[in-house]
């Protein structure tokens, strides 16, 4: 290929122009659709996708939601949050599985500081930590004490890479504190036994479920809504709600420069209709008086049994920042290791 100088100059100009065009291709975030309606960017963690499909369709039928279209993005909670705060992903409405993923956006000045000032503290749906067993519960697992018996194989997502896994470990720790009358040493020993029985710590809650349904382990620590959704999708598994467990609260918010319709959507989520959709797919509603059967629950007519003791992050663990520091700090900043990380190192070395 021989080029005359003129031709090559033209080519150079052309490639430069295309490069400029390439960099100019930023995301179109003005939110207007072709028909003059509004398009909202909904960014959420993976599990509520089925619920949101129904909720967004119903919202479009209301007067506030008329003509509103949704651009949805679902993925691991932490990744989604980082994509918005660092990657500049467009978002009008966000829903994460962990408070820390939302406060990351507050720190990045993308979400108002008073996002949790409302009646429901910014929480749109609840769930609880449950123990998933093989069909028919062949080992007769009744609660937390049964899973740390010798030989029981536990699958739980990796508390390092999966933010959601932290709910599970705090529920287990809370149980141990409760039955041992607040003895932190005994509770720590419970975690040691727990990790000694762990056969797999997959990357995310979804990976853990996949691993479990592929035959790994005897029990899976998961969320009630995940277990119910799996059963709705014909996965063969059972679950029990332990006597002591932790309330899982999933926060949602609108971003600072969101379209006004995003706030209407957030308000709509607290209506009976939207909460009924969350309930249908296994979430515990956050408003009273929502009824309806839940397919896949142990008892579809009475889907959400009240555990004897229900811990909350705020009341029993001093809120997420304190809990993260105490249990999950990775020691990289010169601070001491978190309790869970420490126990993991200890049990890991023994197993070597």
């Amino acid at each position: 290929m021989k080029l005359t100088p003129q031709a090559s100059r033209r080519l150079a100009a052309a490639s430069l122009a295309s490069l400029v065009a390439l960099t100019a291709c930023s995301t179109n975030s003005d939110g207007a659709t072709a028909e003059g309606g509004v398009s909202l960017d909904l960014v959420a963690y993976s599990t509520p996708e089925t619920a949101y499909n129904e909720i967004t369709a119903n919202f479009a039928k209301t007067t506030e939601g008329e003509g509103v279209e949704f651009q949805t993005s679902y993925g691991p909670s932490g990744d989604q949050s980082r994509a918005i705060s660092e990657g500049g992903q467009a978002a009008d409405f966000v829903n994460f599985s962990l408070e820390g993923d939302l406060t990351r956006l507050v720190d990045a000045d993308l979400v108002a500081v008073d996002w949790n000032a409302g009646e429901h503290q910014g929480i749109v749906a609840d769930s609880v930590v449950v123990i998933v067993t093989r069909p028919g519960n062949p080992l007769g697992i009744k609660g937390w004490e049964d899973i740390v018996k010798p030989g029981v194989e536990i699958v739980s997502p990796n508390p390092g890479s999966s933010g959601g896994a932290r709910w599970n470990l705090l529920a287990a720790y809370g149980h141990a504190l409760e039955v041992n009358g607040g003895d932190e040493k005994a509770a720590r020993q419970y975690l040691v036994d727990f990790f000694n029985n762990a056969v797999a710590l997959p990357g995310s809650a979804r990976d853990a479920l996949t691993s479990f349904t592929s035959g790994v382990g005897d029990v899976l620590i998961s969320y009630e809504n995940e277990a119910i959704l799996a059963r709705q999708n014909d996965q063969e598994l059972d679950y029990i709600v332990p006597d002591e467990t932790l309330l899982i609260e999933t926060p949602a918010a609108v971003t600072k420069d969101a379209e006004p319709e995003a706030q209407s959507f957030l308000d709509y989520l607290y209506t009976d209709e939207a909460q009924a959709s969350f309930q249908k797919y296994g979430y515990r509603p956050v408003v009273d008086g929502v009824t309806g059967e839940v397919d896949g629950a142990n008892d579809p007519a009475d889907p959400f049994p009240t555990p004897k003791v229900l811990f909350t992050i705020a009341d029993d663990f001093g809120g997420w920042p304190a809990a993260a520091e105490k249990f999950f700090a990775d020691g990289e900043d010169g601070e001491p290791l978190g309790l869970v990380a420490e126990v993991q190192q200890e049990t890991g070395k023994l197993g070597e």
Partner: protein
Amino acid sequence: MTSALLGTPADTVGEPSSGQRTPRRPFGRRRRASPRNTLTPGAGLGLGIAMIWFSLLVLIPLIAIIVTAGEGGWSAYFNVLRSDQTWAAVKLTVGQAAIVTLINIVVGTIIAWVLVRDQFWGKSLLNIIIDVPFALPTIVAGLVLLSLYGPESPLGLQWANTERAVMLALAFVTLPFIVRTVQPVLEELDADVEEAAASLGARRGTILRRIILPSLAPAIAAGAALSFSRAISEYGSLVLLSGNLPFRTEVVSVRVLTFIENGNTQSAAALASVMLAVALVVIVALDIVQRKVANRG
């Protein structure tokens, strides 16, 4: 070097290593007084595009990683590697990647040989299937391997959540590298030379050692470098299969993800740049070995 990669054929970019090809040059093009600027406009454009593309995709992100890691000074590196758990992950990852690369060198070369030199039923099908590990999303690969070697294994092999699972997943995703780099070289290899050697009384072993291997060495080394670098960075196929157990089956990429999840970008970058350095050392070492072997021919 960049222009060599670009392969602009007729351009007189850089002198060919053997300077005896002047007669094939186009007329009237031997006019450069200064050897410093040897770029024709076309070649300059090529080099420009190559450098812009390379910088955008590789150079700038790499520098960003090193800068982020460097913000904490040497102590950041020290802190990261001081953690037993991280150190165990590095050892496991590098060790398994090395084993898998060695296996690939042997098995990959054999597969390439079989595909080029032998005729058998189903050969062209096999030739296509070799690329499947490239095409398959790695998470799907992990699922497939889990169903094959997990607790419900139809083969009776329960390797999930052990070190073997790590090796298996790495071997699966890196298999095509050496096959695909060796194959074309083997196809070009002149059988006459082997026949001549045989007629001079060389045994099969000698022919293999003195003629075939030296010609294949650069291709094998290139494939091995790709295979090793890919193996130390693997994540997708491992998350389901290996179980991510600290000190036992947790690989470096999972550690990096843990740092990111905790907001420790600096530690993540430090660990990532340590792995970059490991990859660099191995690639250079492979190149040295390759030259030694090639020179024996």
